[in-house]
């Protein structure tokens, strides 16, 4: 066998061996155990300046959305500031109880304080669940389940949440 062929095979084998190592490391890179962190751009004010960018964090496709319906709930004040919850047709409960959708770490919140749910038309409704200190939509204390106007702040203790597009 010629010297050249053997040299090529020798280097070729090392290259292939390392290629395997690199591919294996690439598989680790997309490790499954971790969590996905979605970075959001900075945005200010009650109403969003631009529509939500399509792509990574879009709602499930089978969910028919009404035009102009809010897509997420944002905590804008309080210890949980910045938390977002996607609105996908499910009921969102708020309170200090640990099985709430949003667990409030807030002395002024009751354990089951309020809930937010869509009615049959897809309109989001906020309902106070008999809390001690009450739930405020804008400045008015809620007595009955009330539809949430877009951008209106809902205050629970020290926490303020809003629905956004």
């Amino acid at each position, binding site marked *: 066998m010629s010297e050249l062929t053997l040299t090529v095979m020798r280097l070729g*084998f090392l290259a292939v061996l390392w290629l395997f190592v690199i591919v*294996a490391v690439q*598989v680790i890179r997309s490790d499954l155990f971790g969590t996905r962190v*979605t970075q959001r751009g900075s945005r200010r004010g009650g109403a969003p300046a631009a529509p939500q960018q399509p792509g990574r964090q879009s709602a499930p496709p089978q969910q028919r959305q009404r035009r102009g319906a809010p897509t997420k709930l*944002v905590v804008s004040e309080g210890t949980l500031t*910045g938390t977002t919850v996607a609105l996908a047709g499910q009921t969102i409960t708020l309170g200090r109880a640990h099985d709430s959708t949003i667990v409030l770490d807030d002395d002024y919140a009751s354990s089951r304080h309020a809930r937010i749910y869509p009615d049959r038309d897809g309109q989001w409704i906020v309902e106070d669940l008999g809390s001690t200190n009450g739930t405020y939509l804008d400045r008015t204390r809620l007595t009955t389940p009330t539809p949430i106007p877009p951008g209106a702040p809902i205050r629970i203790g020290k926490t303020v949440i809003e629905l956004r597009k």
Partner: protein
Amino acid sequence: MSVVTNTTTIGAIEAPSRRNTELLLLAFAVVIPIFAYANVGLAIHGELPPGMFLYGLGFAVLAGIGHLVVRRYAKYADPLLLPIATLLNGLGVVLIWRLDQSERLQNLAKRSFGTFSESAPRQMMYTGLALALFAVVLLVLKDHRVLQRFTYISMAGALILLILPVVPGLGADVFGAKIWISVGGFSIQPGEFAKIVIAIFFAGYLMVKRDALALASRRFMGLYLPRGRDLGPILMIWAVSLLVLVFENDLGTSLLFFGMFVIMLYVATERTSWIVIGLLMSVGGAVVVGTFASHVKVRVTAWLDPFACYSTSGACEQVGQSIMSFGSGGVLGTGWGQGNSDLIGFAANSDFIFSTVGEELGLTGVMAFLLLYGLIIERGVRTALAARDPFGKLFAVGLSGAFALQIFVVAGGVMGLIPLTGMTMPFLASGGSSVLANWVLIAILIRISDTARRPAPAPAPSPDSEMTQVVRPS
């Protein structure tokens, strides 16, 4: 008022099973040894080896069976463990076959035993058996937590496995170390299986005792020192490993067991003091035994200066030849089949197989091999992190720790970093027990990782969310 700046949403990633990634890697892992096989044939005989397609086919079938078993019975297992083990095993068979072709080794065997028999077909047969055992473990062991029930039985089992080689009539003294037993013409190395069995005991025992070992301690010079009575277990394991060292002349096994216990103790208790105590105890034990046991003393002399006693002692000559192999390999190696690592003579294809890698594949190849081993260990530790039950965590850490220690001890030994200990390089070295035991180890890690990565079942719907009546505004 409401300012949202660069907030992040953290959500769990849905877990795909990654079986197709595994299949791709596995195909890659089958092709590489066939390439190496062809390369050896071309370099030594100038033609493609005649058994190449048969070998390739057999190997592909074995890997395929392994993959199907994992796909069926451990769907969410880690995608890297099986392909890497397959690759190492395949390259191991090629390395052994390459050393079979060496005329020096053939003549040596004919001079000492009268006959020469090829080791590669035997290794291939053991690989087949090992894959069968791998499948059996995955089929039978549906949940690794079952093993927790056998905590104390496995302690007894491991001790029996360790004692077996010294039992008269059963044990076989091979070249100074009594680590083999011969049953019906087969020689078995019980220590290889004992490392898995004893990991079960350590995991089960430490899971129960870790609070006592971790919390009851005094602070002294920045270290949390355990109470005297809590030192009992570590002293016992230390004594057992010293007994193994003295009566079986086996430095590797005793180091493996003690080291494994210290690693698991550290992981269970998070106390650095155990590592310090363990290191002091193993150094103390090694020094004492090294000065008194003649077999160990020879190894230490060969390690300190192999070239001073090169022409007088066989052990020195082997270590010296091994170091020269690594040296003459250089960065890129001499190429498959073109080195002279067969000068090591006896044990070139078992204890010293890594020297052949060093000579023929060079530093580049050695690094790739060490990285592959490192990846297996990393996946093992990752499995331990992901496992939800403390027993599984400790078990996975123990198995990967044992694997890591074994590689350190063997690779360090042949490179002259530590005294040679007479253990086998997992998956590479010729020897049935080693291949069988390491495939069982991989099967258990795959089982634990399957349990750890399997997505949790959806929580039951909360009943009280349905109870509240909604008063609709009318």
